[in-house]
């Protein structure tokens, strides 16, 4: 009789699967921070700092695209803090009612030109990249719109060989040497370390990408959430962000 045997095996297995869920009720408090992917390195540093300062608090970081995170927050996804890499996504969360209180601008990220470490096209800066095989983000994504605006301002008429779907794809093409030059955010260039060389883009400082942070309506502990915001805006937090390539207000 195969069925009873199967049942006898399955029931304990199912019970085992459920056990960890019921074991969750210990005395650590958890705050969940939804943050734009470009904040990965800096927020991970701040996570350690926050947990050192707050006994029994566990910070959970969830990284993704700003728009996706804002939409998830509006759908009631569990979270205490939302940090976005643009104003539009934060507006989305405010309009959707999930971001409570006034969103704070806590950093900006300027667009930079990067080339592979061995610089195969021998690019010396923004003045001579345009005739190489270069890439940028597509017009449909924020980093692409910013690149287009800066390229127009600097009267660059040459076209890229590819319009990538996101800034990480641009960085990957440069770091692997598959393209001669590309436009990424300063924080991405810093995160790539020795894999890329970075050049400034004229006018980029006047068109920085603003980062916003706000507490979420669904937060179970809004005081603790506010403390995360305070840490990010503190001198300590701002120093971590600057080291990661961001500019601070």
């Amino acid at each position: 009789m195969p069925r009873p045997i199967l049942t006898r095996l399955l029931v304990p297995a199912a019970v085992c699967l459920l056990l960890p869920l019921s074991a969750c009720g210990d005395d650590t408090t958890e705050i969940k921070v939804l943050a734009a992917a470009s904040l990965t390195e800096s927020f991970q540093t701040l996570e350690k700092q926050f947990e050192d300062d707050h006994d029994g608090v566990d910070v959970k970081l969830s990284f993704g695209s700003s728009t996706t995170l804002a939409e998830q927050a509006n759908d009631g996804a569990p979270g205490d803090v939302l940090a976005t890499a643009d104003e539009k996504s934060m507006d989305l969360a405010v309009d959707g009612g999930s971001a409570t209180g006034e969103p704070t601008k806590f950093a900006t990220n300027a667009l930079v030109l990067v080339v592979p470490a061995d610089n195969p096209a021998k690019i010396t800066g923004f003045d001579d990249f345009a005739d190489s095989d270069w890439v940028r983000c597509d017009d449909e994504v924020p980093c692409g719109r910013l690149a287009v605006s800066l390229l127009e301002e600097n009267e660059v008429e040459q076209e890229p060989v590819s319009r990538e779907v996101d800034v990480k794809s641009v960085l990957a093409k440069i770091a692997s040497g598959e393209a001669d030059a590309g436009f990424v955010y300063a924080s991405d260039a810093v995160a790539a370390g020795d894999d890329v060389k970075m050049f400034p883009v004229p006018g980029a400082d006047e068109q920085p990408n603003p980062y916003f942070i706000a507490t979420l309506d669904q937060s179970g502990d809004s005081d603790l959430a506010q403390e995360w915001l305070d840490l990010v805006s503190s001198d300590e937090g701002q120093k971590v962000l600057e080291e990661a390539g961001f500019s601070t207000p």
Partner: protein
Amino acid sequence: MSDSLGRAPARLLVPAGLATLLLVLPLVSLLLTAPWSMLGEQLGTEALRQAMWLSVLTATVATGVCLLLGLPLAWVLARVDFPGRRLLRTLVIVPLVLPPVVAGVALVSAFGRTGIIGEPLRAATGLSLPYTTAGVIVAHVFVSLPFVVISIEGALRSAHQEYDAAAATLGASRWHAFRTVTVPLALPGIAAGMVLAWARSLGEFGATITFAGNYPGTTQTMPTLIYLSINSHPEAAKTLSLVLLLLSLAVLVALRDRWLVTS
């Protein structure tokens, strides 16, 4: 629900019904929620016409290449006995289980500008596949070829080798037997494999974007255009998906009477 063998058992009918629902429901939902009124406007845009043309072109060329390369490989796997045949068959199937993005990364490491073959090729000839329509086709062939090989090999195996043997006893060379006996017998499998490959190519996204990049008119196919629209214009993305869905349905329906009816 019953024939001379008796009633069809519920334990088969119920999962069959669920399977149908699972496959049909999302597509029906897409049809129901798509902004049909935007269809006309979308069809008029340059971006869509370019992407559509490029998708059809690359899928068709890739299917042709798949046939030229896949039929001989399927024949070798089905008809030639050699050590390592099972290993070869496994290797041929691997791209089927690879996530398409990984397939793209693999293609970059082989044919990219810094790839094992790509770098010397570029140094010697100045040619390189990334950022070109040819690169898109290579990516499509890579992901579609296994479908063609498996499908044709299956057809060759079920078309018994005795017919080849009979042709040989009548004095036909192996090449002559291949053309006049083997291929005609395997034709339904060949056709099915080509339809699968074409459909797989038309929907291919991950390997293409990773290997060939994205530029309108050169490398931007329909799936990339749809993916990029999702972030900023979700409604437009639905309309574009609709166009792709209708296009593939049209082709499948057009081919159905000739090739896809199994009874």
